[in-house]
């Protein structure tokens, strides 16, 4: 075995091809920079590889979850666990880490919910008295949000809300029938419900000839064959490859970033899965965008005499301040919709309706808020995915509602009567998900497990994450809201109310798949690895552009902010290249 070293020196090597890596690659390649992108998984082009428009019976498991945790058609290679690539926990931590190893990463299957953070979100300490302020303001980021909106496309409605800034919107899709019931119930509780905001082309994207407009199959999680929604693969990396300036090596698992005697980055070493050989490539600049936790892992594994604590980690903060959204929710069967009308209600595969945080946290026992995501409608009958087989509750619920003859009967059964009940209950489910902001804390972190390596011999991550009192109080409030919504809706609840013994139904950390913060931005090099441009304080030709850069998350889903910040960092690199600083 030997290490295969290339003599070529790239302008930039980007580690990772998701939202953060994809955007940086797109900007740099379009500016004529010679870029090499390393992706740990295989090539994935939604035009060819998407499972869009398949019927459940085209899967032997009818869409089941055996190999893909979000269903057989979901566009994610990977999941909560990956064979031969473990992660460990300490202090009873239960952090859940979702990885997608493929071109475009997790953007191939995400829900396309595309929210801007607001002015107060960038100044958490000042506005809410907890966490830390970002070293940047909303006004500094706004031009990049605007450019991302124009480049990629996002639908929404103009609302003029202070901390939920409007974007440059395509028309919002209309709500489904079931969602209107939830909207009515929420409105009755004084909650302002507005159109969702999603990166789906509900109308043609001006100036873009490569992407088709949405045809409303509601299957964004399978990724879109006509590029009608945003995936980093279809909308950023593949167009960047087409410039001739960006080369991708897939199945390249990065081991470490290499540095020289001056402590500057000089290259990247990786394992090529196809031949299991070791490779090294040379570069003038490195952009790290392997995902929040994987990027921290790479830095911590990149030790040298100049960077004994891991690369860019003189602050000893890399891996710390890991934080994910809080999550809760409820679902109901709406009896008024029994035997409901049939029509194609697929809509878009993102959010039709949502409610931005609507209360004043100063009057509550937790500092930050959460938003509501409303769902429901006549979904394709299927097994697996988020909801499993919708009819699974029918033989339990048919004992709670009168039959066609107006008479009650015992729940359960078999035969023609039961068969008819499945028809009657079909398409009657609706619900709401709550997604909240958690405050970044130093003692929630990932670190290198000193005793465990993966199948490539790379030391793995060990997690330590505990929800705090604020998080639990927020979950308690979510439960109260769920109860109030259920009362207002008048349906049959499908989820039992949760109490203190389960942290009020608070999902395990990581389950939100909004984890951020492990390589945070901050002006003080002693307290944060990155400056406000996403450049490491310790190593000026090393930049980070994924979710790890977040100083503090908000209740807004992070992808749109990752894209805006990555674009800004890439433009900064272009400026610095002109000045010959990197």
């Amino acid at each position, binding site marked *: 075995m030997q290490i295969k070293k290339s003599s070529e020196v790239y302008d930039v090597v980007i580690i990772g091809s998701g939202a953060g890596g994809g955007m940086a690659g797109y900007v740099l390649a379009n500016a004529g920079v010679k870029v090499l992108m390393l992706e740990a998984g295989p090539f994935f082009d939604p*035009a060819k*590889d998407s*499972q*869009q*428009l398949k*019927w459940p*019976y085209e*899967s*032997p*498991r*009818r869409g*089941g979850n*055996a*190999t893909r945790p979000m269903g057989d058609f979901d*566009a994610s*290679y990977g999941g909560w666990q990956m064979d031969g690539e473990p992660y460990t926990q300490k202090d009873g931590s239960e952090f859940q880490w979702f990885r997608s190893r493929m071109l475009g990463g997790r953007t191939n299957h995400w829900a396309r919910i595309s929210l801007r953070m607001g002015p107060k979100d960038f100044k958490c300490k000042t506005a809410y008295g907890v966490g830390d302020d970002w070293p940047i303001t909303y006004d500094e980021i706004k031009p990049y949000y605007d450019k991302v909106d124009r480049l990629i496309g996002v639908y929404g409605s103009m609302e003029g809300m202070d901390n939920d800034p409007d974007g440059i919107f395509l028309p919002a899709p*209309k709500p489904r*029938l079931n969602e*209107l*019931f939830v*909207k*009515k119930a929420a409105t009755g509780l004084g909650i302002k419900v507005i159109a969702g905001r999603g990166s789906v082309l509900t109308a043609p994207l001006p100036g873009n*000839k*490569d*992407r*088709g*407009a949405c*045809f*409303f*199959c*509601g299957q964004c999680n399978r990724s879109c*064959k*006509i590029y*009608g929604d945003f995936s980093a693969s279809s909308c950023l990396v593949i167009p960047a490859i087409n410039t001739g300036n960006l080369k991708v090596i897939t199945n390249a698992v990065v081991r470490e970033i290499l540095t020289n005697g001056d402590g500057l980055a000089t290259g990247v070493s990786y394992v090529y899965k196809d031949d299991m050989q070791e490779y090294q490539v040379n570069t003038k600049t490195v952009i790290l965008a392997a995902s929040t936790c994987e990027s921290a892992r790479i830095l911590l594994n990149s030790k040298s005499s100049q960077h004994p604590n891991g690369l860019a980690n003189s602050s000893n903060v890399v891996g710390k301040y890991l934080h994910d959204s809080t999550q809760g929710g409820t679902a109901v069967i709406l009896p*008024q919709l029994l035997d409901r009308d*049939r*029509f*194609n*209600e*697929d809509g878009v595969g993102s959010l039709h309706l949502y409610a931005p945080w609507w209360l004043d946290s100063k009057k509550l026992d937790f500092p930050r808020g959460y938003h509501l995501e409303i769902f429901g409608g*006549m979904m*394709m*009958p299927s097994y697996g995915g988020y909801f499993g*087989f919708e*009819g*699974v509750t*029918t*033989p339990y619920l048919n004992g709670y509602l009168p039959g066609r003859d107006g008479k009650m009967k*015992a*729940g*359960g*059964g*078999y*035969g*023609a009567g*039961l*068969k*008819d009940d*499945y*028809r009657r209950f079909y398409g009657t489910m609706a619900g709401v998900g709550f997604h909240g902001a958690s405050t970044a804390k130093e003692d929630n972190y990932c670190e290198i497990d000193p005793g465990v390596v993966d199948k490539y011999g790379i030391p793995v991550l060990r997690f330590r994450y505990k929800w705090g009192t604020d998080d639990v109080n927020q979950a308690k409030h979510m439960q109260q809201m769920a109860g109030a919504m259920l009362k207002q809706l008048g349906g049959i609840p499908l989820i039992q109310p949760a109490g203190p013994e389960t942290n009020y139904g608070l999902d395990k950390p990581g389950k939100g798949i909004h984890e951020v913060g492990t390589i945070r931005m901050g002006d003080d090099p002693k307290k944060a690895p990155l400056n406000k441009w996403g450049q490491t304080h310790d190593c000026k030709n090393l930049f980070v552009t994924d979710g790890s850069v977040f100083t503090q998350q908000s209740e807004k889903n992070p992808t749109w902010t990752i894209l805006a910040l990555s674009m800004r960092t890439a433009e900064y690199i272009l400026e610095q290249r002109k000045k010959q600083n990197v």
Partner: protein
Amino acid sequence: MNRRDSLKAIGIGTLTAGAVLTGCKPGETAENVQVATTGREAFEIARDKGLVKETYFDAHEMATITVLADIIIPKDAKSGSATDAKVPAFIEFIAKDEPQHQLPMRGGLRWLDVQCLNKFGNAFIDCTSKQQTTLLDEIAYPALAKPNMQQGVAFFNKMRELTAIGFFTSKMGIADLGYKGNAPGKWEGVPQDVLEKYGLENV
């Protein structure tokens, strides 16, 4: 990309979408699918190929599953039976694909046979239709079932769930439910008459 090009790109071309999407090639039933390879990881393809070669349930178990499935979802005026929709084959596959079903199914089928042997002197499939439903009535209604029948309730819940999944995700079952989507269209919201029916026109 305009709409026509979009449809071409996803392989629908100028034919009506419905005909292509729901149609099958001659001699091929939709449910009798080959192992898909496009857009799937190598380990998934290898796993699927392995699973279709394996057999889990024996002939007697499959015969019992077939009888039970058709009792749970019989043919009626609107659609065929569970067997018509090849539900037993689905149950055989899913038990290999999701091994957590194996023990409850195998043990449950045996439990059922022993109950029938004790009560009627025959295995379940050799009982009369009346005897079969007499036994099932004791396990098909969870809230009414006696304490000594709870293992049977657990088995029947699973059997009923797998049967319903198999049926309502088949082409026949989806048509029965009246699902209208999974086809390119233009979503313009809930039809006005439906909104009015539920008093939601101003929501």
